[in-house]
């Protein structure tokens, strides 16, 4: 009989790669443990464009990634439909760009299996009125947008439904080694400080950019390249079709619509590993993103910015490339036994949000090979929990017959899983967050069932505090609900202070206009009316 702390596989990292690997392994019948030192989706998973890449961006420079992207793109439309918005995308050529590049671009897309159709600039303006009217060329590709938080949660949830154990706020402090074999991990609970040991014949390093340190801890060296990318979120959905520049990948050349907002990005700068834990967006980055962004859609220059944020791409180093733009976005799956002589240890890295499922598949294949298990991967065909139904409208009608606005909003976020969220009576439907239409029922459900430790975790799962007011009113309401649900007002109050600072971190780099106005109001409410600063 196996002990509680013995597993078939231990996965380190709670981003989308770890989640995808955990789901794949769990679906193949393995007993899975996933450990994450913070919350799910805190690294690059939660800090990107949310672009459902068609692969077109890489078609010319990185064919392998381009092919992977388009295949995964088509798969995600089927298995993750409640996370995906099928918007399509344009690659536009501006007067300052070389129109000759377009032909090469279309040819490369076609070679990679990406549908790329040249359309008349006038037609492009008709289909996407926000696009820069000076464009001289446009190519239509199957880009889209994807909600990375939702995608990550759905993978975690499915892993759990198939028996996986997910431990958040649990940090690997040490590998348990026996000679040249990794037997397990020693893990510290970052909330209680308690140390536990877990054992498995295989450990998978899926820690993104932090995988560099995890590998080093195991005695292996992966030459990683931390490439910071900064992005801006705008308060309106300016465009309804993704807009890219038809040129070699450069700064701020993708504008992605998502939910009620749109996102411009990114920059690419190498940063020291020490900075990966605390990224700040600089005024220069903001200026660059705005100037370049307005070339894609001139309306951005006058649209309110909601937040600035930055993530770190977990690239694996190739040659000397100061920005990391030329490093392949391809998947790197390392068997450290053959590579470094360390048994029972695998790293899955490189790749992209788009190819997380394939990364999970490759890692799970390797794990199964090591365990002598012959099970096929099913993640390309089985829909994720929530994605078994059709469009939000149909899903919500099926659950509630005549759905209210908060019920529809919940179905938009949780898909068919909305049926397990208590949303029948008026008290459950009372809105906590007006901007994002998040109801009390959804908040209570997340607190009870979705491993929420604090307000930021709650935001990742429900979108509380992600709207135009950036938590101005809902943060206090949600903190009150956490205090009641957990019976600990002291922690909830400290948590509220942490949340206000987390929101402010994304606001101050873009604090002018309406954001400054919102900030003044929030300052007075929290630091004077309710006096949170004195507590």
């Amino acid at each position, binding site marked *: 009989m196996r002990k509680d702390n013995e597993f078939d596989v231990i996965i380190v990292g709670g981003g989308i790669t770890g989640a995808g690997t955990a789901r794949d392994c769990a679906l193949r019948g393995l007993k899975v443990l996933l450990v994450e030192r913070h919350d799910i989706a805190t690294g690059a998973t939660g800090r990107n464009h949310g672009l459902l890449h068609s692969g077109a961006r890489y078609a010319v420079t990185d064919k392998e990634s381009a092919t992977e992207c388009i295949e995964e793109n088509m798969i995600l439309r089927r298995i993750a439909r409640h996370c995906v918005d099928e918007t399509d995308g344009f690659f536009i050529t501006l007067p300052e760009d070389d129109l000759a590049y377009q032909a090469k671009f279309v040819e490369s897309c076609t070679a990679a299996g990406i549908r790329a159709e040249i359309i008349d600039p006038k037609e492009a303006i008709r289909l996407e009125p926000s696009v820069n009217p000076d464009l001289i060329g446009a190519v239509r590709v199957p880009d889209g947008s994807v909600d990375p938080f939702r995608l990550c949660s759905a993978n975690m949830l499915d892993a759990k439904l198939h028996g996986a154990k997910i431990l958040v706020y649990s940090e690997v402090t040490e590998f348990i080694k026996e000679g040249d074999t990794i037997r397990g991990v020693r893990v510290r609970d970052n909330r209680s400080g308690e140390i536990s040991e877990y054992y498995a014949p295989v450990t998978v390093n899926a820690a993104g950019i932090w995988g560099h340190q995890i590998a080093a801890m195991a005695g292996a060296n992966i030459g990683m390249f931390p490439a910071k990318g900064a992005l801006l979120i705008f308060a309106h959905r300016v465009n309804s079709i993704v807009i890219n520049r038809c040129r070699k990948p450069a700064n701020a050349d993708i504008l992605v619509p998502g939910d009620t907002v749109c996102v411009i990005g990114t920059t690419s700068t190498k940063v020291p590993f020490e900075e990966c834990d605390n990224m*700040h967006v600089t*005024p220069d980055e903001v200026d660059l993103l*705005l100037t370049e962004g307005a070339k894609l859609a001139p309306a951005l220059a006058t649209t309110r910015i909601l937040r600035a944020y930055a993530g770190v791409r977990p690239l694996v180093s190739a040659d000397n490339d100061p920005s990391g733009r030329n490093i392949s976005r391809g998947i790197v799956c390392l068997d450290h036994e053959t590579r470094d002589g360390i048994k029972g240890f695998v790293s899955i890295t490189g790749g992209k949000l788009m190819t997380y499922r394939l990364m999970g598949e490759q890692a799970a294949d390797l794990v199964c090979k090591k365990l002598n298990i012959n099970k096929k991967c099913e993640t390309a065909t089985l829909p994720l929990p929530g994605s078994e139904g059709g469009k939000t409208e149909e899903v919500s009608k099926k659950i509630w017959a005549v759905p*209210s*606005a*908060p019920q529809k909003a919940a179905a938009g976020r949780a898909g068919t899983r909305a049926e397990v969220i208590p949303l029948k009576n*008026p*008290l459950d*439907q*009372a*809105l*906590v967050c*007006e901007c994002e*239409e998040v*109801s*009390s029922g959804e908040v209570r459900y997340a607190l009870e069932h979705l491993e929420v430790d604090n307000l930021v975790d709650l935001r990742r799962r429900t979108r509380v505090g992600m709207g135009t007011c950036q938590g101005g*009113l809902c943060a*206090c*309401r949600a*903190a*009150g*609900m956490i*205090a*009641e649900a957990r019976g600990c*007002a*002291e922690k*909830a*109050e400290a948590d509220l*202070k942490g949340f*206000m*600072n987390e*929101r*402010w*971190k994304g606001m*101050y780099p873009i*604090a*002018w*206009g309406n954001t*400054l*106005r919102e*900030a*003044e*109001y929030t*300052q*007075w*409410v*929290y*630091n*004077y*009316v*309710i*006096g*949170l*600063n*004195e*507590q």
Partner: protein
Amino acid sequence: MEFDVVIIGGGLAGLTAGLALQEKGKRTAIVSAGQNALHFSSGAFGLLDAEDPLQAAKELPEHHPYARIGAENLPKYTEAAKALFGKAGIALNGEPLKNGWRLTPQGGLKRAWMTLPEVDIFPDKEAIKGHKVLIVNLLGYLDFNTSFLALGLEKQGCSCRIETLRLPEMERLRENPSEMRSVNIARVMDSAWIKVAAEIKTLVKDEDWIILPLVFGLKDATVPDRIREAVPAKVLFVGTMPPSVPGMRTQMQLKKAYEALGGTFLMGDEAISAKTEGSRVLSVSTRNLGEVKAAEFVLATGSYFSKGIASDMNHVFEPIFGADVLLDEGRSAWYDPDFFSPQAFLSYGVATDGQFRVLKDQAPMDNLHAIGSVLGGARSLELGCGAGVAILTALSVAETI
């Protein structure tokens, strides 16, 4: 349209100035765009966050509005403020020359100068220690955090019990997901307060304090007192998340008193631009009325929230007159990365001379005075002087004009 004085802005500063000027016999108008800082009032006015505010005012730098008024002049205006509000039917609690304390929604204490009638002001910190408290909320109301209030009070040595009332009168509100907000509840409570008082009587055991959210007395200012009379323990009303019920009622009361004195309150109108000649303002253009002329103009447009101060990527500016603004150069100097530290941008505002005459291109405008939170250099949040600056600069300028 022509007036002796046109006041731009109908918040605390503008209304105070309007009342004082009407009393002096001036013919005035207030142009009010709508929202102002009274909408998120705590129910208390701050003069200066210091043990002895009038003494501490002497230490302020010269560009602080109190320094412009002159610390020696403050006492007469603080006395006048209480009297002026009294005449408008608002009996402020507290003493004009002293500070007390207000109970915050987090169960802590913040310095207060005077408070609106339903909000208690405590002379010292000891007054809130050791009580047996019954905190009563209304079912489904999320903007009154009972557990935080209890936590704070327990730290002060109180013991707390929390009860939630379910009133049939509120069912209709609850059915709409976004209706359970202070002002909507307060509308119901103008009549349903009787039920609340009756329910509390059955709930109270040995508690000596009952705490209710500030959702009473929106139209009928007497409701809080009537609850107090009906309940056999001391009833305290504690602030909620905005909108502020006592703040909105106070604005209505001040407006009514102003109109009773013959003032013209132009509700929902907004000053867009101004016509000037040399250092004189000839008129302002408003959205609804077009050109409005006057001998004197008062800028009481508030700060960012009320749009008296605006900003773009690289500038903070005053949008109507293009007045000089006190600020730091370079956007990264505007803020502190810590939300709970003083924020430089909050101190930015219009520059004036010693008489609050607005500076434009470093020269004073002859007939344009600025009052309240549109003024630069006040650091109102950090120093706890928001209402004090609004009221006292209004009274000072009203005397000058």
